[in-house]
């Protein structure tokens, strides 16, 4: 029997050979894209996808990109920008808050279902994922979905793979929908507002048809982003200025949307939690979280709270996910209700019967990382 010595496959076939052997020997692997995202929380030998890299097809006229998982994200975004297109869900760069080096990759982005401020308008990565090729925990080469925008042929496993953090399979190719890049953006800033006022501003703005593509509250300032063609932007800006005049908005040209996306205001300084909630619950949750001794910011119109600080946010928000551990204890992913946990565990056993793919990660019991 051959011994696997090099866990840096350059082809899908090599990924399959490695995983089939690891399955037979029940040897766990820890899947690495650019190593920028998930902290070292799981056991197993590192399986690097950095060599499984490159664009397979990019068709701007079809708004379709197919590429391998190890392809660096900056390279992809630059290629798309040259055609005035982008990944509309605005994938964040987590290096600063996780204190990591390396380069973000396409595969890591899909595995984490990463998405930035434009989530409120454009959806998450999973909403732009057209299809996947992957290798499961037995070494089977599998595909699901395809490269077209409308496809209901069979079960949609791409959605399961997006956000599965490598626990169901190793991605070997992903197909994504690309969208036109907005030629410019305009931001309305509302300095000196609290969480409750910020939420009022968001609710009013997101109830308009002006395609607000960012609604965040950081450091006491609320921000609204408007994109679109030149005429559209000016018109929408003026309408929103009039609608929200009582909150004294300012038009700013250099608003920190990349910093908001990457949560750089919470670099360093203790555990960092990500909390998804019903937007109108955000001010109340933030009050409770601040009382624990930390600080909060809002994105996605209030649907996403970032909390940096001590304490146990799950006491207030059962859905809280621990993004940066620091000195926090307990599982990173929130516990799931019994029947849902049973289905998730069943799916993991189907895709990975020997439990070799990122074991412990995303686990539904208290032992999970």
């Amino acid at each position, binding site marked *: 029997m051959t011994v696997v010595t090099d866990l840096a496959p350059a082809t899908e076939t090599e990924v399959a050979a490695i995983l089939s052997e690891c399955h037979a020997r029940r040897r766990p692997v820890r899947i690495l894209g650019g190593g920028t995202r998930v902290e070292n929380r799981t056991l197993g030998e590192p399986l690097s996808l950095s060599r499984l890299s490159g664009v397979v097809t990019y068709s701007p006229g079809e708004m379709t990109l197919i590429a391998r998982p190890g392809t660096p994200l900056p390279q992809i975004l630059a290629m798309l920008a040259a055609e005035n297109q982008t990944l509309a869900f605005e994938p964040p760069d987590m290096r600063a808050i996780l204190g990591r080096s390396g380069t973000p990759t396409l595969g890591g982005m899909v595995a984490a279902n990463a998405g930035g401020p434009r989530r409120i308008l454009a959806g998450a990565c999973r909403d732009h994922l057209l299809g996947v090729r992957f290798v499961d925990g037995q070494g089977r080469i*599998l595909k699901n979905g395809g490269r077209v925008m409308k496809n209901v042929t069979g079960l949609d496993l791409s959605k399961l793979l997006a956000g*599965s953090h490598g626990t169901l399979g190793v991605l070997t190719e992903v197909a994504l929908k690309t969208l036109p890049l907005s030629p410019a953006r305009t931001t309305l800033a509302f300095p000196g507002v609290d969480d409750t006022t910020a939420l009022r501003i968001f609710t009013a703005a997101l109830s308009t048809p002006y395609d607000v593509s960012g609604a965040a509250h950081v450091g006491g300032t609320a921000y609204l982003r408007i994109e679109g063609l030149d005429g559209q932007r000016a018109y929408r800006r003026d309408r929103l200025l009039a609608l929200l005049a009582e909150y004294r908005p300012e038009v700013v040209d250099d608003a920190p949307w990349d910093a908001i996306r990457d949560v750089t205001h919470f670099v360093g300084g203790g555990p960092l939690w990500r909390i998804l909630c019903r937007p109108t619950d955000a001010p109340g949750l933030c009050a409770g979280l601040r009382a624990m001794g930390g600080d909060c910011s809002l994105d996605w119109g209030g649907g996403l709270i970032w909390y940096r600080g001590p304490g146990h946010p799950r006491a207030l928000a059962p859905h809280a996910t621990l993004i940066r551990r620091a000195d926090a204890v307990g599982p990173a992913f929130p516990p799931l209700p019994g029947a849902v946990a049973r289905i998730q565990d069943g799916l993991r056993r189907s895709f990975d019967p020997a439990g070799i793919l990122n074991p412990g990660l995303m686990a539904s019991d208290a032992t999970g990382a």
Partner: protein
Amino acid sequence: MTIAMPAPDAQVIAQRPQIVAALRAVLPADAVIDDPHETRAYECDALTAYRCPPLAVVLPRTTAEVAAAMRVSHGLGVPVVPRGAGTSLAGGALPTADCVILGTMRLNAFLDIDLANRYVRVQSGVTNLSVSAELEPLGFFYAPDPSSQLACTIAGNIAMNSGGAHCLKYGVTTNNLLGATVVLTTGEIIELGGPEPGPAGLDLLGVLCGSEGQLGVVTEATLRILPRPEGARPVLIGFDSPEVAGECVANIIRSGVLPVAIEYMDEPCLRAVESFAKAGYPDCPAVLIVEVEGSKAEIDDQIARIRAIADALNPVEFRESRNADESLAIWKGRKSAFGAMGRLGDYICLDGTVPVGQLPHTLRRIGELSRQHGLEVANVFHAGDGNMHPLILFDANTPGDLARAEAFGADILRLCVEVGGCLTGEHGVGVEKRDLMGDQYDPDDLAIQMQVKDVFDPGWLLNPAKVFPLEASAAHRAHTAPLAAAE
């Protein structure tokens, strides 16, 4: 009849009185139907060539009643076929003789309208159109708009991941579904997703949406709602070749303008529509209808860009709507296309998707196949996303004609897969495309999908004989069922 259905389970049919009695014991009297005259109303959906009356029908009004019916069926080993409004063109709700039809039509309550958080919570049997109708006075709408929206239910939309004409901008059901209450085959009730933007663990809602009733029955849904646009305006563009129309579509998409809809109609379809609806369309080989949204100035700006793109390709006509009546006139022909085709005879409506760049080639090949099979075909479809709806005309009274039309349809769908597309863009696999799944997926690709079904529905009681080819599912079950029983 060329699509085979499995022989019904004689033991289940023999137990019919006990099954009906057990259902009556847990459901209100009017919620269980077993009179053969009445169950006949459920013998088919919109794929009317295939019919089979079910063993019984249940029409629950609450999640608890659905759960009770599922517990009974599970306990007695009776297959359950969930059914919304029965508008499936793919036979997604086709009964078997040994099944209980679980209809969602009485699950029709609006539970919550939350404008501040931009969602509605409904029971799953409400119709698609009633959701937007309810929201209209409030300034909001629900984006997916399948053409059956007057009748089809949210339950059916979720089962089939329905799209519509406007999904180029707004996405399909899966992009607008936030949460669901689901009854599992055992009768257990689970909540997936919710008003918060994203799942806590794996995206189970994502795999449930579009699973064609294979994994569970959705009884309530939380839907994302959007503020209504200030206005919308269509333009009609005629071209003297399908290829140039296809090029125009690709150039619009590339330009950065994102219309809400780009619809395509070819010559046979235009002829039928003209004689039926008198929409006043130009007499040419290909017509595009492109609709944009926004304020008046935004619309003017976008249409100017589209006009510049179209003018570069020498259109036969570029007609911009100047008022609401003209907008209606432009949409009139498109909206009456299926009715117009129906006047010409029987037809099969296909639903493959191809990459947009492959549209001209695909249309040419469909023309060749039409001559080969000796059957007429008309094309009317969502061009912006490559979702084609070829309509194959045949005569149901001519022996063998249906089989010929089905063979032609299968060739078109194989063509869609061959050029990089898929078998179905929005109608679902059902029984209609079940036996073609092997053309798109390898055995292992199908195996992993069936393993997902195993997790949700270990006894394979939900919506039998759909989605997976019968031989593939039988072989899979022969292998896995004994293992499951041993656990």
